[in-house]
């Protein structure tokens, strides 16, 4: 009975926050964590990842029809300052519309690469925890849409 009351309280909180800014809650380590878009003052891009092959996730989001769309996986949590990701060196996989591979909104791991210049058939990810996000820039290079920082858990391969 006590647990039910707590949930109702948080539900009301969510409704109020949602009026002012895009926000969501992620259940991590048994706690609700408030998640903002990675870039401030951008519209929410809802994206999800799916492990279809070992160490090779695929990503999907509602296609934005924007010219400049980027999806990247980071080794550690994404650091942002003044709407610019600062730990760019922690990127281990990236895809963007300039590669000309895949279809914006549905991307396979193999369609990205390890450098920002071209897709280069990356090797599968090692088991562990990774962070990823999708964002779109407008024609002036300013972030317009962005997802929250998503968690990607690559499990140990099952022993035969």
């Amino acid at each position, binding site marked *: 009975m006590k647990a039910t009351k707590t949930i109702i309280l948080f539900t009301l909180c969510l409704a109020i926050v949602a009026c002012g800014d895009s926000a969501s809650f992620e259940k991590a380590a048994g706690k609700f964590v408030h998640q903002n878009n990675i870039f401030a003052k951008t519209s929410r891009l809802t994206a999800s990842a799916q492990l279809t092959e070992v160490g090779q996730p695929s990503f999907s989001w509602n296609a934005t029809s924007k*010219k400049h769309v980027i999806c990247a996986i980071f080794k550690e949590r994404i650091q942002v300052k003044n709407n610019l990701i600062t730990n760019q060196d922690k990127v281990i996989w990236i895809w963007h519309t300039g590669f000309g591979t895949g279809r914006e909104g549905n991307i396979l791991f193999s369609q990205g690469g390890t450098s920002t210049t071209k897709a280069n058939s990356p090797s599968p990810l090692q088991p562990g925890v990774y962070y990823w996000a999708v964002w779109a820039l407008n024609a002036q290079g300013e972030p317009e849409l962005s997802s929250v920082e998503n968690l990607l858990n690559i499990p140990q391969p099952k022993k035969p």
Partner: protein
Amino acid sequence: MDLGRVLTRMARSTLNGLESVRLKTFTEMPEVPKIMARYGNFEKLDRVSLIAIKNITGFDGLLQIHYRFQGERVHLLIKYIDFRNGRIFRKRRLLQNIGASLFQTIESDLVEFATTIRRSYRVTLTIRSTPAKSKIYINGRYAGISPMVKELKGGYYTIELRKKKYKSYKQKFFLKNGDRLELKAVLYNPLASTFLNAPPGFRVESRQLHFGYRYHFMGFSKPQIFHAHMLNLTGLLRIKSFEVGFRLGNSITIDSQNKIDSFLGKGEGLQSYRFSFHQFMAVVNYALWEKYSFASIHLGGAAGFMLNSTESGNKSLLKWSFSADLYAQFISRLFRNGNFSAELQLDLGFAYLGQLTYTEKTFNIFGQAPDVEQSKPMFTPFAGITLRMVFWNDIF
């Protein structure tokens, strides 16, 4: 009906109501008709004889009324004889019913006749002023507000007109009876009188207000600005061959879009700008050649400050810089009305509009890269057209 008695009563009440006029009938002065009878018909007398009657009898004028009835109507002849000035003032013949219209005509004649004679004993003073509604003082005493008509006795008079914020007008006159003085006094305001009383070389000959348009060829590819259109308001004073004053200029807003490189390739990004310029300039022009005031060629220069406002995305910049221009002006008069003339002016010149300050964006795949502030000088040739409103001073 005794019309003679009615008319006599009407004349008495009308004339006795006027200042310094009295009506006397022959019954009051029985000797006068005998004297007058000696002269016979007054209409045949010359001016000297009529004045002589005035000197003998002391009468200034005479009303002779003859009437006879024709049915309902009356045939009336009234002679107005002016002994004072030695002339027949008027002969009025009337044939009409006895009524208000008849009496009004006679009354109007009586007043005019008496006033004319009275004026020959007085000075008639008519005072007008620019500006109107100035206070009038005659020999130091307040007499009224202009415009004003006043009758005075002959003599020495000091007439002064005063109005707040204006320089007083003061003048002395010797006036004889019968004189008519029409005075038109112009009162200058202190600022104008300061200039008007200045030595000839520094007199302000005209005040001018100009409304102008200028086309500037910019020819910039980055940021892309090919033209600028300025609207100017100029206020000048003409002193000798020079015009000095100030100019305020405002540009029509310039929208510009510039391609920038992104990770997709060259020119895949786009940066938008919105520029506007505001000028505050001191102006000096020199009249190089003038054909009276119909046409002229001036050389001029201006120096001052330019405020450059740049908006790009959600960022805006405001920067002041020095600005200057040099030009030639070709002026032709459109029309002139009194002290005002409208002129058309064409300008050709070269301008330093100041520093154009703007931000330059670079694409960064990981978010918004910081803008880089840039500036470049704006040297531009220009051409312009101006409507000049010129207010010339009275003394010129």
